[in-house]
């Protein structure tokens, strides 16, 4: 029968390296933050075209990173609290995340239109403003390109920190329970497949 053996690792089992590298590159040059768009567009594309969550299931480097760190004994492996896995939290966080994302796009537009100057900060957890001008070297790029990079890296760093905290407190991939991308792609898949069966 098709009993699954301990199969050799595939190329996509190493995508955690890309996720770790992404976080490091943000310290080298903030413009690398643009690469994070891959983590937004690829899962959406797969869900919209393929109607599945193979991004979460196979390719998510962040999920792998949490799995790996959890496997090193950094996770308490406790159940997530009930509220965290409730629908209102999952979709509430998605809406909150959307609001923050569009706020970031608005700031980018303000800089593009000249209404606001470029702010060389990375905002952690929506409140802590970390000076980040030391990672902005290619100052000849348009201001909005850099502003988007700072904003986007803030989103990525914040969600990684949240994921790390819940990785330690609960199961390694607790982030998946409230991941906005996961929620969005699941909604797309449900809409595509219908709620049959």
């Amino acid at each position, binding site marked *: *029968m*098709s*009993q*699954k053996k301990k199969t050799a690792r595939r190329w996509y089992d190493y995508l955690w390296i890309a996720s770790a590298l992404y976080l490091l590159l943000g310290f080298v040059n903030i413009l690398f933050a643009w690469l994070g768009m891959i983590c937004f567009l690829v899962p959406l594309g797969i*869900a919209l075209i393929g*109607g*599945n*969550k*193979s991004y*979460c*299931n*196979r390719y998510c480097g962040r*999920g792998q990173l949490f*799995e790996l760190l959890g496997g090193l004994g950094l996770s308490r*492996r406790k*159940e*997530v609290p009930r509220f965290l*896995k409730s*629908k209102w939290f*999952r979709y509430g966080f998605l809406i909150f995340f959307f609001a923050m994302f569009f706020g970031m796009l608005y700031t980018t537009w303000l800089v593009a239109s000249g209404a606001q100057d470029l702010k060389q900060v990375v905002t952690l957890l929506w409140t802590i403003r970390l000076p980040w001008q030391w990672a902005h070297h290619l100052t000849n790029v348009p201001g909005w390109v850099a502003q988007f990079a700072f904003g986007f890296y803030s989103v990525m760093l914040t969600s990684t920190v949240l994921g790390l905290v819940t990785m330690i407190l*609960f*199961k*390694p*991939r*607790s*982030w*998946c*329970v409230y*991941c906005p991308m*996961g*929620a969005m*792609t*699941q909604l*797309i*898949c*449900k809409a*595509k*497949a219908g709620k049959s*069966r």
Partner: protein
Amino acid sequence: MPVQRKKAVVEKDHCVACGCCVKVCPLGAIQIDRGRWAVVSERCVGCGRCANACPASVISVEVQP
């Protein structure tokens, strides 16, 4: 003594379809159905690895009637 059959049961309404269960199943007995939720096949012997791995804790091992 009657043999008790155990099987993983997914609370699919709260499943986030992350696929952690699929990765740890030694029998390939659990799959994500079209990105919606996890589905357990007849091959499941109820070892409970998926239940341990599930970040949302929506899988439980139940004794089959």
